[in-house]
């Protein structure tokens, strides 16, 4: 074995050793599900928002290894507003808290806000933010192919496991493509912040075609790349990284579930 080849081999061993010490992605996935379930079981708004806040702080200040771009909060805020409007309009239970539009002279008041409506609006927004933020942490801290391998260890067929991991791998890529296309629209004189329904319709219309074209091209290229390297040739494949379930992973999961149960009970 030549000197250079020997060096490569040592570097590979170091790299494999480092990745075997990371938390098993399946355990991480179960933990995420457990936290999401917790969000749907509790109605204590203080605890819920405290947990969301803690996760947001962790997410924004910890450099997660697979993070490609910080998410835009605008979409979350708009969607949250929609949830609030629907809940406030739909629920008329509980005490009347206030009117959104107070009585002015002989007009009004309009849009009564009831206690239950307000409560459900804040609860559902919390659940929505909770699930989204915890999924950000999972996506940005997990190597998609380690996740696929750990699923394969649990007897999930590797073709299925890799389809899932490819979706994770290319989510940020697609996000980036959308940004490029939005930029391209503006360089061709299209207003990216239209203030009319027609403008918004045009913006969506002129995003759809390039995104479809770009996604189809990407799928074609990745298919050629994978098939051109014998993906799916055999029923089994040899994983370089084993990603076995370790005792420490199971202990971590157990502690988390115990903690969540305690939080639910007390």
């Amino acid at each position, binding site marked *: *074995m*030549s000197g*250079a*080849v*020997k*060096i*490569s*081999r040592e*570097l*590979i061993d170091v*790299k*494999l050793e480092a990745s075997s010490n990371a938390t098993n992605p399946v355990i991480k996935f179960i933990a995420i599900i457990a936290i999401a379930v917790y969000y749907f079981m509790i109605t204590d708004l203080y605890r819920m928002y405290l947990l969301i806040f803690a996760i947001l702080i962790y997410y924004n200040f910890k450099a997660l*290894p697979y993070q*490609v*771009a*910080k998410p835009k909060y605008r979409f979350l805020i708009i969607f949250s507003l929609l949830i609030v409007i629907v809940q406030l309009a739909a629920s008329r239970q509980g005490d009347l808290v206030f009117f959104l539009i107070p009585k002015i002279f002989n007009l009004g008041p309009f849009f009564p806000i009831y206690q239950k409506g307000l409560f459900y609006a804040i609860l559902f927004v919390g659940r929505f933010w909770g699930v989204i933020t915890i999924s950000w942490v999972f996506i940005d801290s997990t*190597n*998609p*192919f380690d996740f696929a391998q750990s699923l394969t260890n649990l007897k999930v067929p590797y073709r299925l496991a890799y389809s899932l991991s*490819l979706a994770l*791998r290319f989510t940020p890529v697609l996000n980036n*493509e959308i940004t*490029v*296309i939005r*930029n*391209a*629209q*503006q*360089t*061709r*004189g*299209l*207003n*990216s*912040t239209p203030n009319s329904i027609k403008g918004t319709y045009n913006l969506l219309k*002129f995003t759809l*075609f*390039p995104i479809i*074209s*770009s996604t189809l*091209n*990407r799928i074609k*290229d*990745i*298919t*050629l*790349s*994978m*098939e*051109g*390297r*014998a*993906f*799916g*040739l*055999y029923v089994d*494949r*040899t*994983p*370089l990284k084993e990603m076995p379930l370790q005792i420490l992973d199971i202990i971590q999961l157990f502690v988390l579930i115990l903690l969540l149960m305690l939080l639910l009970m007390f």
Partner: protein
Amino acid sequence: MKDINFQYSDSQPKIISNVNLKINKGEFIVITGRSGSGKSTLALILSGFIPHLIGGTYTGEVIYQGIETRSLTLGEISQLVGLVHQDPENQIVTSNVLEEVAFGPENLNLPKEEILERISLCLSATNLDELISRGTNELSGGEKQRVALASLLAMGGSVLILDEPTSYLDIVNRAQVLKTLQKLNLSQNMTIIVIDHQPEIYKDLLTRLIVLEKGSIIGDYYAEEIDYTPYQVSVNSLKKIRILPPNNSIDNILQTDEYSVFLKNTKILSDISLKINSGLIYGIIGRNGSGKTTFANSLLNLHTNKGKMSIFGKNTAKKPTHEIAKDCGLIFQNPNHQIFEQTVKKEILFAPSNLNLDSELTDEKIHQLLVDSSLEQYKNSPPFGLSFGEKRRLTVISIDVYSPSILILDEPFIGQDRYNFEFILKILQKRKENGLTSVIISHRKELFNLVDRFIIFDQGHLIGEGNPREVLPIIKSKHLYPIMEEI
């Protein structure tokens, strides 16, 4: 290859027609020809994707070492031959270098020890040992190209096909890739087949040049017989444009002062102070990752910036992109990103209509543009169905149609044959004659006889601005061009 014929569908003409070709082990072959001549399709046939994965009417035989590829599965063919695509970015599947090189051998279900052995050998052969822990999104263009090469080498095949392997690369990265190919060809006796519009890049490596036209082989030359002139843009046609005197030249139509650009809060460009005049052709050059594209995008406020930036003396720092676009057009590297409409004719009208400039456009002018760009026959066809070269011509005319005072073209020559190159030259000539400014970002050597002035970036800094002769020492010292006889 014996009597190969292929057409993608019955409604389309034959893309490959009666191709017969014999390639010996250890040859280094370059396949060239105009855009749409069938080069990439031939690569797909040689690598087994046609007929195994891509549909169409296919007849003939491809035989590797006595085995006809139709009797093999695609996975089996992948152990004989590998195809590296034009843009390696689109070929990379996994998140880091080690996983990418391991991906193929893992699929072959080889013993772990053999996988490790293959990875070690391939990383060494492509000089990637140091990059083993790197994320694939952290690699430069040249590094990605070498990772793509290593990942195919790990399949254990003896034939490598590369589709324009150096088109995205600067001169240093290109030299690295060529050196790797030479090493594989000479020391490992690998057969290398390269598809490129610029065969002269490989003149020290190739053993044969094959020329395709309309899907058929029209030339097959050994190294000593090759005349590279037909594949090169003539120096005179470039100089003819450069010597045109500036028409009604206005100074400082675009100016930046202590201008910095940020991407995700990281400073990418620092303290750029630059003045651009009207009626000239500028070339922006620099190594991969030096900030050329970032600078171009930032001029239209697509990135966060600080400092002064003005067009025609008006501060544009806070102006929205769609308003700056009226004075400053930008053509992206990838034409697929800049096509929006459902027909070619509507696409030409897209920007003028957004900018309320469509009333100035007559049917005759649009017709003339379509004729000049050889797109007339497609005027009612969807632009997404055009070839890469046709899309490039369409994106160029779709912005040039409203004659912005400044036109920035980001790598307009990638994947373009001589015909498309000369089409872009005509646009540049017309713009110069009309006193309009053009700015080209490119690694192509032709720039040195074409542009009036160079703007040189290095690691996020402007390190030079001036006519080609003035900046020659910088170009030499930074290895931006294999100097010098063309200048």
